[in-house]
């Protein structure tokens, strides 16, 4: 592989990427020719079960929402990681157990931290 | 390496740091640590001396500070005969001055500060004399200068003291400039800064020349004279002597230690240490001798008429230092160092005696307001008398032997200026005796001329001050006995002791000549004493009449040949006028602005503009960084 090395194993990914882009773009573009387009004032207002909107819909979310979301992601990843671990557990033996104990132990510290700091309480 | 060699600089350094940092809390007890440290140093110095007497000399590098190829700067110690003598002088005087200061500085604010500076000075001076290379010599040289500056300006609230400190500092810069050029030239010539290597190669540079701006100089002469520049500044020789009398603004113990016994003699030490370099150039030796001779006479004449007790002694110091240079100039280095040794004791004694008088007189320094102090200050009186006799060259006392050694060496020297040196030396011996006894009589004899209040306060100093006086008096009497010339029945062990470093004078005089020389110098001294007795004891009205008879001469001498005014008029004021008139008015400030302020200002305003980019906006930052990144990538692309 002198100088002009091309990662040929990834050609499929590239093709996939290109197809994805073309497909997405084409769908939107072709849709323009078939859809109806008749806008008027009422139709352009936000739909809230028939009531006229009382305030701007762009109010900030509570920061706690993000906090919970992040905690969710962290522990979700932990759960997901357990699957492949369980699959190869027989091959790796006690080493795997120790490794996973450490991994979960680290997350446990994080969990205790979040708990004590009140990150899990919504109203505080 | 023996441990005492390491302890010598470390003890005072540690004492300086601890006292400086924590001395304030100790209050009036702050002197204990420095005194213990310096006393231990004296013990170490004695051990060093004993080792050297037993034939041990040490030349060792402690470690290499900077090393890069051929450029080596090391910290190392050289212990030989010369160092041992200097160690004894420095530590013994320093110890006594420390003890004396307990009494003298008793009521001063900043008591701890004073002692910490003294320790700093002791450390610097020991580094100076212990070093085995020029870099360390230079370090010690600057460090003693710094501690001298701090101590002269000790009463920094007093404007004159602060100015005197600055003056000492600035005047010394002139000398040190030449000195550092000399050291650089030594390195360029020999490729090393170690004494032993430099001196071993010294002979190889005879007849070499060195071009400076198209002019060709004799290399050995150039090196020797540049080094001598430093000595002129530090040892207050003409024309850089002006700082020393002003330095008397510092506390009197400082004058005794730094401005009489040790630091100012560093110049003599330098010339003696570098004798293999000076020996290469007859021109340099002649210059050294002549500078010594002129300064000697010059300072002695000024001392004749001064009325400030400390200034008389200060000019006497300048004059005595000049004796040492004359000795070095005529090649009698060991005689020079011998005079350094004896002078340290009798001059320190004179200064401390002055201090005791000033202490008793409630800080009065004008001898015209003293008189008749003999009965109030008996210890001070008798010790002062011994010191005065010693400096006047009365046979049997320290000053006699060392002065005689110098005069004999000068007379026998093959150097052209030798005979001049001898003549001046003998003449000044008489003048020295005269002004010393004048001071003595004015202070201790006659009637008291001060105020009633001062008379009421008169008291002998406490034991912490009188004991050092007595010990120094022992030194002032006996220091000379180490070098009793053969003609007087001794065998001058001093000369043979120092011979390995300083060489032995080659010329020997006939007995008759030697007796003649001794008789002449003693005679000059006796005439001086007799004149002083006549003028200030028997017929005290004569001095006034003399002054009225030759008002010009008196005012000339009294104003120290107006050298200060000359410098002020010729250098300082023109510099100020030039910058004011020419630069400020003629160029309307633009040039000064341009030169002095312009560059920082230009940089500053450039910075201000650059600073605008740092406006706190993340997008600005990111765009600058992106531009930079782009530039890097483009460079990588084109290469």
């Amino acid at each position, binding site marked *: 592989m002198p100088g002009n090395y091309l990662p040929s194993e990834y050609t499929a990914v590239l093709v996939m990427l290109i197809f994805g882009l073309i497909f997405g773009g084409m769908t939107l573009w072709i849709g323009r020719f078939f859809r109806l387009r008749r806008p008027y004032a009422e139709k352009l207002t936000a739909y809230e079960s028939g009531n006229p909107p009382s305030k701007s819909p762009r109010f900030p979310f509570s920061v706690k929402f993000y906090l919970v979301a992040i905690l969710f992601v962290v522990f979700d990843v932990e759960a997901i990681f357990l699957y492949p671990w369980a699959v190869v557990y027989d091959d790796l033996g006690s080493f795997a157990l120790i490794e996973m104990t450490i991994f979960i132990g680290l997350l446990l510290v994080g969990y205790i931290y979040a708990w004590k700091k009140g990150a899990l309480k919504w109203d505080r | 390496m023996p441990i005492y060699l390491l302890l010598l600089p470390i003890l005072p350094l540690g004492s300086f740091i601890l006292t400086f940092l924590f001395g304030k809390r100790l209050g009036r007890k702050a002197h204990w640590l420095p005194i213990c440290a310096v006393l231990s140093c004296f013990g170490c110095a004695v051990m060093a001396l004993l080792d050297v007497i037993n034939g041990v000399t040490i030349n060792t590098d402690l470690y290499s500070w900077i090393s890069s190829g051929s450029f080596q700067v090391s910290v190392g110690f050289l212990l030989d005969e010369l160092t041992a003598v200097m160690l004894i002088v420095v530590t013994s005087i320093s110890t006594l001055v420390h003890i004396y200061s307990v009494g003298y500085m008793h009521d001063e604010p900043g008591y701890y500060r004073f002692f910490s500076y003294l320790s700093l000075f002791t450390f610097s001076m020991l580094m100076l004399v212990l070093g085995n290379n020029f870099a360390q010599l230079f370090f010690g040289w600057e460090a003693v200068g710094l501690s001298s500056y701090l101590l002269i300006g000790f009463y920094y609230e007093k404007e004159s003291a602060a100015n005197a400190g600055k003056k000492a500092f600035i005047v010394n810069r002139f000398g040190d400039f030449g000195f550092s050029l000399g050291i650089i030239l030594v390195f360029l010539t020999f490729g090393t800064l170690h004494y032993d290597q430099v001196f071993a190669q010294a002979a190889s540079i005879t007849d070499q020349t060195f071009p400076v701006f198209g002019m060709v100089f004799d290399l050995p002469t150039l090196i020797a004279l540049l080094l001598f520049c430093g000595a002129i500044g530090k040892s207050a020789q003409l024309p850089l002597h002006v700082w020393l009398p002003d330095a008397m603004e510092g506390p009197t113990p400082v004058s005794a230690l730094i401005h009489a016994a040790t630091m100012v003699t560093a110049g003599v030490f330098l010339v003696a240490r570098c004798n293999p370099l000076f020996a290469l150039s007859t021109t340099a030796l002649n210059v050294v001798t002549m500078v010594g001779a002129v300064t000697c006479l010059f300072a002695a004449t000024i001392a004749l008429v001064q009325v400030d007790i400390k200034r008389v002694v200060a000019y006497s110091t300048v004059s005595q230092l000049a004796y040492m240079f004359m000795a070095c100039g005529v090649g009698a280095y060991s005689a020079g160092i011998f005079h350094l040794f004896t002078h340290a004791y009798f001059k320190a004694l004179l200064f401390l005696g002055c201090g005791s008088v000033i202490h008793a007189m409630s800080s009065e320094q004008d001898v015209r307001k003293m008189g008749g102090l003999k009965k109030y200050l008996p210890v001070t009186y008798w010790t002062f008398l011994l010191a005065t006799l010693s400096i006047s060259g009365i046979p049997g006392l320290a000053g006699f032997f060392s002065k005689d050694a110098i005069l004999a060496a000068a007379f026998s020297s093959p150097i052209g200026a030798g005979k001049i040196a001898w003549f001046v030396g003998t003449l000044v011996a008489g003048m020295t005796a005269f002004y010393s006894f004048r001071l003595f009589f004015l202070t201790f004899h006659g009637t008291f001329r001060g105020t009633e209040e001062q008379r009421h306060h008169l008291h002998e100093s406490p034991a912490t001050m009188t004991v050092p006086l007595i010990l120094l008096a022992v030194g002032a009497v006996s220091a000379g006995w180490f070098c009793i010339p053969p003609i007087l029945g001794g065998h001058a062990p001093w000369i043979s002791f120092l011979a390995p470093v300083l060489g032995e004078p080659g010329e020997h005089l006939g007995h008759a000549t030697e007796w003649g020389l001794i008789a002449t110098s003693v005679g000059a001294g006796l005439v001086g004493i007799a004149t002083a007795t006549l003028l200030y004891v028997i017929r005290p009205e004569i001095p006034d009449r003399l002054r009225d008879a030759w008002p010009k001469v008196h005012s000339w001498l009294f104003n120290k040949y107006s050298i200060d005014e000359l410098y002020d008029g010729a250098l300082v004021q023109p510099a100020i006028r030039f910058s004011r008139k020419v630069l400020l008015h003629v160029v309307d400030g633009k040039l000064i602005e341009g030169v002095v302020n312009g560059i920082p200002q230009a940089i500053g305003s450039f910075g201000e503009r650059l600073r605008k980019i740092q406006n*706190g906006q993340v997008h600005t930052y990111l765009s600058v960084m992106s531009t930079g990144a782009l530039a890097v*990538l483009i460079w990588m692309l084109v290469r």
Partner: protein
Amino acid sequence: MDTAPNFILTPLAPLAPELLLICLGLLLVVVDLFLGEKRHILPWLAALGTLTGLFLLGNGSGHFSDGLFGGMYILDAYSLFFKVICLIGVLFTVMLSVRYLDTEKMHQGEYYSLLVFAAVGMMVMVSAADMIVLYLGLELMALSVYCLVGLLKSDSRSNEAALKYFLMGAFSSGILLYGISLIYGMTGTTDLQLISQRLTELNLADNTLLFIALGMVLIAFSFKVAAAPFHMWAPDAYEGAPTPITAFMSVGPKAASFAVLGRILLSGFPELHVHWGPLIAGIALLTMATGNILAISQTNIKRMLAYSSIAHAGFALLGILATSNEGVSAIMNYMLIYAFMNMGAFAIIIMLNNRERRGEQLKDYRGLAQTNPVAAALMLIFMFSLTGIPPTAGFIGKFYLFLAAMNAGYTGTVIAAVILSAVSAYYYLRVVRYMYMYDSEKGEAVAMSPSLTAALIFAVIGVIGLGVAPGWVLEMASQSLPALAQ
């Protein structure tokens, strides 16, 4: 992966310092939660742990290994040296923090924990022999420091600083990752040794894409060491951060980044010096100029020290430029010296910090020589050292850097560096002038604390000691190098 079994068999004992610090970090977080009012033991715990870490480092210094985790993690004298600098930095920071957190009423267990994690990150960085591990360490360090910068929650400057630092740090991380991935694409490996091999095997020495990749790595690390023009984050982040963290940032992460830069350029791409040399020279010059010139117009001393830190990064780059063992050992020496002198200066700033004045403005230093002569004398020493006046350590540091660059033939750069170094005297000595030449506005005594005193003593001993007896550090530094340069 065929190297998988090695993972399992990797003995963990050589990693004791890193493991200890990870445990310490976790412990600090947990302990803080349950301590309540007894929080003041946290710094002592952190200091004790760091000291133990230093001890373990010294203890393990005989057991070097160049192939932990399948060759991704190496323990050599080079990394050991920088780890010691980092831990000294952490130790200093802990000592500086005790009183600062008190005066700022900022009591958070996370503080010490994040500090320790940043230290772990730096240790991983300097030991990394693989770009991925390197990135891991870098991010661990960077994320911890982002948080530390913004930890003064009630101070808007601190928040702003953290956000800016984070945004720009993310920018540089992205560039670094791009560079790493391109290098991986070219050579098929992220192992630095292998990269160097493949460069010759695959005859990549003229490949433009490779240079772009290398350029990106350089950019990212120029950002980390705050070299111009990638320094823009530094003044704001340094000013806004809690002062001990400012001190920490200018010492620890900078040293670690220089260690990595040295390892990448000298272990990964030594053959390409012809190409990256002039680039580094340009960056060094620009950095020195920017840092020194902008420092002049600052009135906030923290900000001034931020620019001074930029300038010093420029001086240190001269050592990279030299591409020799001499140069790298000069950097190592310099980083150690810089840790001491900068920490000392910051210790004084923190000492002057009290409720009324924050000790950050230049005018706060008026007449310090009268109100607190010892503090003024110490600051004088640190300023002299930063300027590079002998016999302080700063002189030695600069001297060897300049010498190394000089011997490598960059005479012009060195001359510029010397001139800019003279320019720096202007703003450092200005502090001295304020302390000694002006009268104090109000003669208030400065409160001391034992830990701050200890830090100051430690720093001044370092500055004077390394200035008076510099030989052994250099010796150690240069002895650690044959392992690095192949």
